[in-house]
């Protein structure tokens, strides 16, 4: 965001250009009054005056307050004000956005003239860039910054959630699964069909956003163009730099914040829970597709109808969604101590999160974190520091995993008995084809366990040494240690797959869902070592030429290893340790190494801060490629022109309101090395064993085709932009147009099975373009005690595969081919619904089972057949537009802020349980029952009601089921009240805010089947539902 960066970056993080700590001026916008008491007994004396700017213009809207009281007013259009001062004594405080706050002692005067100085802070603001910092106004690249102050008090459980709405960044947070609710992040489109995740660095070290406490983040910088080139081979998907909070010189501060929220599912399919209606409609569906036997006979339905009154255990009438889904809660405590002296600054933060999800069991998450950040000036020339971030987090899932549970949960039928009278898990009086293993949702949640736990610590030490000739040497060493199970590998740390048996409600005959329990323990150990050092220099020559240079080298080694063990043979579900099992023990394990060696440098030049130039280069060597292909060189150049600094511009009358007017351009070449390890090496894999006469004999096989020539993927990025700021920051505008061309994209190529049935090789194929623009616009103002802010971010990206060597990557519903976006939909085109048998007879059709009420596919090539050749390319899995906007108002100590976020131009393809009717024994939604074709309802929304597994003709991949996935949602709305200083100072507080939040509470979308912010690459609904959160909390500073 280009606004609201109220805090400065003080952390001793990435080795910076020029070194030295930039201490920020105090914030202008807050704390108008101090703790003196008001004395109402004094007589009021009116004081008049006028407020103007340094160039003599009157300033309207300036807040004028008698210090230590609630007495205040606002200057009028001519800058004049009148205020009644108790006893005519005291000090007036003048504050106005964009200007430095000024205090004027009244000294018994009744008229005052005050000149406010412009606050140069906005112009001094610095931004963390790769291996250094840069004054924000002098940036020449497309860089977005986000001050976490702006997201303060929001119930954010993962830093990725804070990036919603940052221009050019698409965050998709699919589901609200406790402990695993990170969003996927795409910066300016999708450049590769491989890993498209941006590189994330925390205080200069590559790290996982999920493993840091969001409350300890100071700022997030997103490098979107050639500015990322300093990270070379990992930069092509953009780079996110997270800077954590450090200490500040001055008074020791203790900050405590707490929030507690209630969570509810945003969207759950509207399934039919009336057992009679369910059975009748299932029968109807079977008849409609030509079956002559149905699942439930009339006698059975009658039996059920009577049974509901007399034996609700056997003939239940229940809504499993109501039974299984409850309100969840989320609470967070954060405590931070910070302070410092000339010699040393420190920050120590403790965080605790406790979350219980919306299912009645098996979705609990906790997070405990410690963050220590300390910097000491050993001598005048030597500064050393350390950052230690450690987090223990854990979360639980249903024994078989969340996706498997939701899959089965969305198959629950109204005729399932949850419990028998004796407390055993029930199944169903009538069997239903497709429902063999009666997956009682209560049983699946309450039996067994699935725990994920990890401890991850990032320890970084650094030393900055000032050398003669303005040189600074910086050495940095980071160690990242993970124990447990990282999210990346999806390993449960501890899983007990329990006995699961349900019983027939009448006969008590068991149905064995899982008769062979096992225990599984997975342990991952990762040790990532990063070392980098830089030498930097800056010099001002002849008062006009600013020169800077930096050179450095880095070495990063990622070691991963895991081992897992599994054993069967448990008596029951009580003892779950590996030691309690008895038969068939199995083990597995693997370790990997991955090395990156880099040399990099940056040179910068500006002339009077008017003409700005910046160039970076990086040479990376990666162990992921073979000798001869492993080194790549990347670079970025950018230039800017501060037109506002030009004499001619300053001389133009009436333009003095302009704070910043800069145009800039950049070009860079970035890389991507994201291929699986050892992809270049043809290997013979083990584990393809065969048991001759029940004796296992080791087997080996070549399973993958290999392209030994694979090398870096390269992205050429062009960006032209402008930054504009006026009226002391009241209006800000940034605009960027970009073009990204990725060549030699790495992807796994599908090859025909006739080539030995091998998995296709990772190969450099093709060219992908992402072209678009980002706009950000903000306006904020203060009118007396009233402040408001309107800000918006908008990004457009057009993705197109330019060249794929003529190849096409075709999946079940998607295709990647030249001339279309990556992973476009590839579907039959539906022309309508067959109304008559004659119409069926006279047209090409997908099979001879087609009948009236079925979908009519278009025979694109008019060959009289409907087959794969009749598919068309349509739709997009990548949103064309991403946007977000803030609306905020405050009056005195009350503020209301809201944040909306949306995407446009993306399609979803809902399928399987509860998306399609009676999917393999699953139920159906009211939507389907009410809108299906019948001869009497020929213009229905849906085809004739059938089972989706029985009448596959209607559920072929077709345009009929493609849905617009665009949405706009009120991501957050927050009402906050800061208690008056006069009140809280008595209890030694310097700030106390209380707030309420609503998260995801309003969504505008045409997508009606599920929450639209779902996993786009997965077409079914088998994911943890998205949640809305209502929370309240306090934020106190001592």
């Amino acid at each position, binding site marked *: 965001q280009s606004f609201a960066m109220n805090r400065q970056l003080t952390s001793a993080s990435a080795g910076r250009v020029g070194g030295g700590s930039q201490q920020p001026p105090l914030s202008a916008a807050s704390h108008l009054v101090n703790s003196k008491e008001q004395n109402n007994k004094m007589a009021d004396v009116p004081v008049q005056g006028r407020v103007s700017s340094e160039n003599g213009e009157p300033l309207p809207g300036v807040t004028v307050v008698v210090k230590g009281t609630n007495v205040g007013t606002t200057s009028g259009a001519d800058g004049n004000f009148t205020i009644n001062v108790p006893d005519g004594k005291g000090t007036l405080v003048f504050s106005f956005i964009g200007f430095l706050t000024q205090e004027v002692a009244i000294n018994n005067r009744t008229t005052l003239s005050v000149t406010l100085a412009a606050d140069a802070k906005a112009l001094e603001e610095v931004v963390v860039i790769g291996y250094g910092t840069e004054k924000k106004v002098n940036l020449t690249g497309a860089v977005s910054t986000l001050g976490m102050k702006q997201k303060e008090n929001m119930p954010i459980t993962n830093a990725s959630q804070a990036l919603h709405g940052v221009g050019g960044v698409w965050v998709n947070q699919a589901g609200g699964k406790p402990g695993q609710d990170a969003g996927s992040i795409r910066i300016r489109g999708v450049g590769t069909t491989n890993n498209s995740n941006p590189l994330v660095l925390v205080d200069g070290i590559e790290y996982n956003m999920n493993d840091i406490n969001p409350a300890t983040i100071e700022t997030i910088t997103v490098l979107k163009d050639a500015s990322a080139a300093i990270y070379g081979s990992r930069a092509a998907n953009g780079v996110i730099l997270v800077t954590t909070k450090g200490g500040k010189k001055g008074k020791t501060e203790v900050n405590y914040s707490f929030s507690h929220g209630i969570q509810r599912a945003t969207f759950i399919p509207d399934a039919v829970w009336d057992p009679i209606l369910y059975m009748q409609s299932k029968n109807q569906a079977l008849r409609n597709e030509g079956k002559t*036997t149905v699942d439930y006979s009339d006698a059975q339905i009658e039996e059920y109808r009577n049974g509901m009154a007399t034996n609700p255990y056997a003939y239940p009438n229940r809504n499993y969604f109501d039974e299984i889904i409850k309100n969840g809660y989320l609470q967070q405590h954060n405590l931070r101590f910070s302070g410092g002296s000339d010699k040393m600054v420190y920050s120590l933060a403790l965080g605790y999160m406790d979350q219980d999800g919306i299912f009645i069991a098996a979705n609990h998450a906790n997070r405990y974190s410690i963050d220590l950040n300390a910097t000491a000036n050993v001598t005048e020339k030597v500064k050393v520091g350390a950052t230690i971030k450690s987090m223990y987090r854990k979360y639980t899932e249903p024994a078989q995993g969340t996706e498997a549970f939701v899959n089965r949960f969305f198959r629950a039928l109204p005729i399932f008995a949850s419990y028998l009278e004796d407390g055993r898990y029930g199944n169903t009086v009538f069997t239903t084809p497709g429902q063999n293993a009666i997956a009682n949702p209560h049983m699946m949640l309450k039996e067994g366990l699935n725990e994920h736990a990890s401890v991850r610590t990032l320890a970084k030490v650094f030393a900055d040494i000032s050398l003669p000739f303005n040189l600074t040497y910086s050495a940095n060493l980071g160690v990242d240690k993970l124990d447990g199970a990282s999210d990346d590998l999806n390993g449960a740390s501890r899983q007990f797959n329990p006995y699961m048996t349900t019983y027939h409600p009448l006969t008590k005959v068991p149905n064995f869902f899982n008769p062979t329990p096992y225990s599984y323990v997975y342990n991952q150990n990762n040790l990532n070592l990063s070392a980098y050092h830089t030498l930097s220099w800056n010099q001002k020559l002849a008062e006009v030429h600013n020169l800077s240079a930096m050179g450095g080298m880095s070495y990063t080694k990622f070691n991963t290893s895991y081992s897992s063990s599994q054993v069967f043979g448990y008596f029951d579900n009580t003892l779950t340790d590996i030691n309690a099992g008895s038969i068939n023990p199995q083990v597995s394990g693997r370790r990997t190494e991955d090395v990156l060696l880099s040399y990099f440098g940056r040179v910068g030049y500006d002339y009077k801060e008017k003409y700005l130039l910046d160039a970076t280069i990086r040479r990376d*060597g990666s162990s992921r490629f073979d000798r001869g292909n492993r080194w790549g060189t990347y670079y970025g150049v950018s230039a800017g022109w501060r037109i506002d600094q030009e004499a001619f511009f300053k001389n133009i009358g009436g333009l003095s309101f302009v704070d910043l007017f800069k145009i800039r351009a950049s070009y860079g070449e970035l890389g991507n090395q994201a291929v699986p390890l050892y992809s270049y090496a043809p290997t013979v894999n083990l584990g393809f064993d065969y048991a001759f006469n029940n*004796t296992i004999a080791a087997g080996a096989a070549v399973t993958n*085709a290999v392209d030994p020539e694979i090398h870096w993927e390269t992205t050429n990025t062009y960006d032209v932009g402008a930054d504009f700021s006026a009226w002391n920051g009241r209006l800000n505008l940034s605009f960027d147009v970009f073009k990204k061309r990725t060549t030699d994209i790495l992807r796994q190529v599908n090859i025909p099975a006739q080539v030995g049935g*091998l998995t296709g090789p990772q190969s450099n194929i093709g060219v992908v373009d992402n072209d678009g623009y980002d706009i950000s616009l903000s306006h904020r103002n203060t009118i007396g005690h009233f402040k408001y802010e309107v800000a918006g971010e908008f990004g457009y990206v057009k993705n197109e595969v330019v060249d794929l060597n003529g190849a096409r990557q075709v999946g079940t519903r998607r295709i990647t081919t030249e001339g279309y976006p990556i992973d476009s939909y590839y579907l039959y085109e539906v022309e309508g619904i067959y109304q008559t048998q004659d119409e069926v007879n006279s047209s090409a059709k997908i099979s001879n*089972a087609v009948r009236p009420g079925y979908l009519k596919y278009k025979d694109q090539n008019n060959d009289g057949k409907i087959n794969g050749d009749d598919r068309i390319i349509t739709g997009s899995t990548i949103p064309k537009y991403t946007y977000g906007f803030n609306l905020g108002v405050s009056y005195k100590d009350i503020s209301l802020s809201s944040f909306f976020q949306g995407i446009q131009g993306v399609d979803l393809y809902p399928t399987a349980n509860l998306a399609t009717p009676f999917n393999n024994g699953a139920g159906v939604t009211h939507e389907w029952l009410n809108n299906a074709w019948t001869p009497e309802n020929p213009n229905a929304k849906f085809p004739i009601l059938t089972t989706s597994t029985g009448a596959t003709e209607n559920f072929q991949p077709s345009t009929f089921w493609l849905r617009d996935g665009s949405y706009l949602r009120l991501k957050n709305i927050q009402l906050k009240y800061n208690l008056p200083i006069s009140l809280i100072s008595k209890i030694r507080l310097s700030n106390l805010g209380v707030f309420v939040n609503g998260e995801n509470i309003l969504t505008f979308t045409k997508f009606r089947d599920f929450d639209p912010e779902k996993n786009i690459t997965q077409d079914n609904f088998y994911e943890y539902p998205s949640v809305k959160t209502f929370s309240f909390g306090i934020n106190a500073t001592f």
Partner: protein
Amino acid sequence: SEDLLDTQPYDRYTETIYWTSEKNAVAALNGCYAVLKEDGLFGGTATPLWEETATPNAYNYDNSFGFNVIALGTHTASPANPSEIINNRWTDSYRGIGRCNTLLAEIDKVPMSDALKNQMKAETKFLRGLYYSLLEMYYGGVPLILDKPNAATQAELPRNSREEVVQQVLKDLEEAAAGLPAKYSAAADKGRATKGAALGIKARVLLFEASPLINTSNDAGKWTAAANAAKAVMDLAPQAGYDLFPNYRTLFLPTNENNQEVIFDVQFKAPEQTGNSFDLIVRQFNTNAPLRDLIDAYYMKDGLPITESPLYNPAKPYENREPRFYQSIVYPGDTYMGAPVTATNPFKITGYTFKKYGIYDKEAGGAILNAGQSETNYMVLRYADILLMYAEAQNEAIGPDATVYAAINKVRQRAGLVPYEVPAGKTKAQMREIIRRERRIELAGEGFYYTDIRRWKTAEQVLNATIFTSQNQAIVKRTFNPTRDYWWPIPQTQRDLNPNLTQNDVY
């Protein structure tokens, strides 16, 4: 600094250093066998048992692996079509072929004894022949690739003619037969390909060639070739120890694996490895539910069909049936795992389930085996099949001579029919019907009938029919398009990847 960047995997070999020892070569051969367990071939959940559901013998209500749409005649080549089997049989066959081709290309580099090397080559050729035979029997002509997998040279190869593929299959099987022992002395080698296995698969391939689907001119020479091939296995019986296993019920249980009737089987092992799910599907899923039509096909215990036997009582259709019926089928009125069986419980789909290839019977108790936990070997070829192949081919080539009677009577004798002898004096046509019914009964539920009704060209009658439950309730009407459905389509996914693959007619 280059050394800093050299890393290597610790859990797999690079190919350059692999082909250096006998142990490694043997492991590569084991990898060729392991493909047999893939779901497109004889493994997965229960692929060979599900194949029965594409025939009048059984019904798969939830379209497991796409066999039901094949039965309905509504399958297509479309990638989203739920006929996974059409995609997977193609891919898995080529996976096996690719591994065999790699081994044959590399094994000469490996220092090891010539005797073992030659035997291993012969085993590999057997497997390659078997994998190609599946392709030519289901899809027709396919790309014939005999070199080590190479995307650059093989990815765009078009289909060869079916005849070319068949010739190569026969060549591989003959070379395999020449290099393979009649049986293995070491117990740990049981399950490897033998001379009899190669000759037996050759007989199956030649029988397919001789059958009406291919042999449209009814060339007697082709029947003779098939008969001779089956006879070669029968002649090998004394040396290889082949004979019918005395107990038809326990022939299909894990306790009797590798018995004298087995000519080639897929060796499953659980729980150390992922086994199949035969027990789960017959006990619980009921996705290979026998149909009334199969029940009615079983003889009465006097060896006569229900239409001819005085013992048949339509009111009590399960009384006085032949032993194989009770050894293969669970029916309403039966007892299963200690509980009574009714027409809708526990086998709701048709009222029946298969006992064959399941470990469960009347008795209660026993292990409850779930997905992947069954280790019963699947017999790709057993001696009874050889006898029936011989009888069929010889009857077509010569007529019902004494050897035809002997072969079929041997099967009926073991089945326990009283009397077991086919009455003398049958015409060739009468004998044909007897042999076909015998095949259907003897091999019921084992996954061979689908190819039988295709090669006999009877599918267009028996698959254009309504299917019924035990209560004679109609379930659904199936269709079969004779101009299309005798062959499977080339999977659209493959045609998307290799545009040179032509499609079969009408798909």
